[in-house]
């Protein structure tokens, strides 16, 4: 008689402690007094400001001293001095949105050799230059859905152009690659990509590049701009030009910047994710790396605060989730 309750008790205790270890396995303690440096692509970029803000919010939650430093122009060489300063200041982790996949690798390798954890977010470097990359959404998914959105708006036929950021930006080129792959499908055979223009993530340059595109290609039916600076500048130009409503504009942008253009019809639909979440997740990943709790290997899991438990995928990539589509119906629900 006493054996059964004992067995039951043993079973209960065993299963509870088993569940307990699963729960606590992701809650390994963090090192104290960690210091992080967040290096965006450029500091006066509204998207980057939101993203870096998410990272510093996470740092505050974790009791980490985090700061945001970066160049005012989007060049890889402009980011190098900040990486070097972070090494000299003996930071524990560098969170960086890379302006170039290769140019930064020697410097990031130097950082890693000094026991500084390196996490890339938004725009990756070659895998040997970092331990974890926070990818906002699957690159293939972004490329496919952007082409699909534009095709819907121009009836899957006509010339269109892409207004990108800087010619080297890793994320831009990856998304463009998947866009071109998607275009090879038979349902898009009437659609032609006539030009890829570069606005360098600078408002003024993106504006003039949009002007140039519309003047050089009078038959242009649409523009995809997978950069929040580019799409905002293009929208600004198109909404005050005779092309409004005639040339479809879509891409990646923030709701706050594009709300007026959705309301006045310049843009029907565009996509994004929450950039703050990207920064937030990056900081949590970096905290675990810097504390030695994970190494960035496939299959490792870690707790990411309000974003729940996350798993490291292949090549050290951590995916945030699917992109959100914004249009006139839902744009007022978001505030970033």
């Amino acid at each position: 008689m006493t054996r059964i309750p004992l067995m039951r008790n043993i079973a209960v205790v065993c299963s509870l402690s088993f569940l307990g270890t699963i729960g606590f396995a992701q809650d390994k303690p963090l090192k104290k007094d960690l210091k992080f440096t967040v290096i965006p692509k450029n500091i006066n970029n509204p998207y980057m400001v939101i993203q870096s803000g998410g990272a510093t919010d996470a740092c505050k939650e974790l009791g980490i001293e985090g700061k945001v430093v970066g160049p005012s122009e989007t060049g890889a060489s402009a980011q190098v001095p900040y990486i070097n300063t972070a090494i000299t200041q003996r930071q524990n982790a560098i969170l960086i949105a890379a302006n170039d996949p290769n140019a930064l690798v020697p410097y990031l390798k130097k950082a890693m050799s000094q026991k500084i954890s390196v996490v890339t977010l938004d725009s990756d470097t070659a895998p040997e230059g970092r331990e974890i990359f926070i990818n906002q959404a699957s690159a293939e998914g972004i490329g496919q859905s952007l082409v699909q959105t534009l095709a819907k708006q121009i009836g899957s036929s006509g010339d269109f152009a892409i207004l990108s950021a800087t010619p080297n930006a890793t994320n831009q080129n990856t998304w463009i690659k998947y866009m071109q792959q998607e275009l090879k499908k038979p349902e898009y055979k009437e659609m032609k990509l006539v030009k890829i223009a570069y606005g360098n993530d600078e408002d003024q340059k993106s504006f003039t590049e949009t002007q140039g595109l519309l003047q050089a290609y009078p038959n242009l039916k649409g523009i995809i701009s997978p950069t929040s600076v580019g799409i905002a500048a293009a929208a600004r130009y198109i909404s005050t030009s005779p092309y409004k409503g005639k040339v479809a504009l879509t891409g990646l942008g923030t709701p706050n910047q594009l709300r007026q253009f959705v309301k006045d019809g310049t843009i029907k639909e565009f996509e994004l994710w929450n950039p703050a979440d990207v920064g937030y997740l990056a900081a949590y990943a970096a905290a675990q790396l810097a504390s030695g709790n994970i190494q960035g290997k496939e299959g490792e899991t870690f707790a990411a605060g309000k974003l729940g438990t996350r798993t490291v995928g292949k090549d050290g990539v951590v995916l945030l989730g699917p992109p959100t589509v914004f249009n006139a119906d839902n744009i007022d629900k978001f505030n970033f």
Partner: protein
Amino acid sequence: MSEGQSSTRRLVRRVSWEAILALLLVLALVGGAVLNKDFLTAENWANLLANFTEIALMALPLSLIVITNEIDLSVASILGLSSSLLGALWQYKLAMPLVLVTCLVAGALCGWLNGFLIVRFRLPSLAVTIGTLALFRGFAYIILGDKAIADFPSEYAEFGIGVVPNTFIPTPFVLFIVLALIFWILLHHTTIGRRIYAIGGNPTAARFSGINLNRLKLLLYVASGLISALAGIVYTFRFSSSRADNGTGFELSAIAAVFLGGVTVQGGKGTVTGVVLSLLLIGIINNMLTLADVASEILRIVTGSLLIVSVLLPNLIAKTRESWRLMRRQREIARLGSAS
């Protein structure tokens, strides 16, 4: 007799500028060490020296040009042109030594163009080099467009970011040390140097004493182009990135260093020592501010202010000296007058 006195006084004035720079340098070093515990580390000094290597290289021939009362604002554009040429040629997989020589020759040709226009047509160097600033940068864009080339062979990339073993001296900085010595010997211990001062101090007298101004100025511009191209190569390997817009704006930092180094706007005065000291000073100040996480725009304010101060200060000092001299003379006259 009075000439001897005034030339010693002039010598004292010259030494003072470099002495002031040396004093400021010491103050900056102390300040840097006190304000930031990471300032005196080998790691930091490697970064500090590496960060201004290209500007330092360009400032050397530039200071000689300014002493002859000319200027060269196209140095940063030649840097960019050399960098984009390097990337473009490397894309065709030519042998790297050949590519490097081609870039240097291209830089020398650019310098020759500057010199030719200035000397042959007696055009003001400010106007010519502003024009070539745009022209050469334009060539850089034609050669490479918006692209960036990044895959250079590892031994060159390591040269760019490495240090001399067991020291904190970046390997490219060694080039600067060697060239600084060469220019120091050239300017202060050869007749060519004497002639450079003569051209700046009194061009007419120099011409009548048989100095070939045209040839010397042309040579200086060719040297400036050559060394700017070298700076372009160093920059490209340091960042493993060949882009048409590399080095944009560097000419301002180079000019600031030259003027802060004691080379006067009117020409005819200045030393290589002064320019080296001012380069170090600006480098240290920039480094201190970067360690304190000051934004890069504020660093530009610092460079600009130093440039203004370095041009304004000799002017003010000369004016105050002149008015003191006048006061002293008036007092002497008054004294002599009352004595008789």
